[in-house]
């Protein structure tokens, strides 16, 4: 009788142990959202004003000088 008990005990223990050995998988997804990369066109700003000023100076230089001397 005692042996039967021990046998049942071992069966129960085996059952519990096998049940305890379960696999627990936690699936976690980490999504890192990337902002869309915006490629801005490189605007090369050529300073037109400087070029225009130079052209104006070239043309009006003499006239301005005469006007300044004569009292504009």
């Amino acid at each position, binding site marked *: 009788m005692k042996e039967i008990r021990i046998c049942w005990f071992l069966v129960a223990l085996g059952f519990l142990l096998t049940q305890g050995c379960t696999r627990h998988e936690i699936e976690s997804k980490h999504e890192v959202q990337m902002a869309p990369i915006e490629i801005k066109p490189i605007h090369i700003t050529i300073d*037109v*004003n400087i*070029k*225009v*000023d130079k*052209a*104006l*100076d070239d*043309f*009006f230089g*003499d*006239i*301005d000088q*005469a*006007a*300044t001397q*004569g*009292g*504009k």
Partner: protein
Amino acid sequence: MKISAAGVTAMGKQGKISLFYLFLIVSFVLSAATQVLANANDIKARMQARLPEIGALKAQGLVGENYKGYLEFVSGTTAKVELVQAENDDRRAVYTAIAGQQKTTVELVGMRRAKQIAELAGPGTWLQDGGGRWYKK
């Protein structure tokens, strides 16, 4: 490869024709450039000739320099309209030429010129700021 005598003559003729066209094109370009220079010199001469009269109009406070690079009557009096008109026409021609050269607008060139004029203007000259308000320098 054999080239017949007729072929050589034809090639020579073609060469002469293309040389003739090249000469024509070069002449045209040169004459156009000379014309532009002559025009620029004419405008300059006219502007210099007008200086004393325009100076007098400014000194009297009749005309001022607006922010667009042109002369404008400040007071109600419109004396010597033709003179002012002629000056503005010549200025516009210069601004247009420079705008063409620099690939920009005539308005921008005029406004840049207005800045230069404002800097060079003598005391008492009527000037217009960017907002259109007249003030005496």
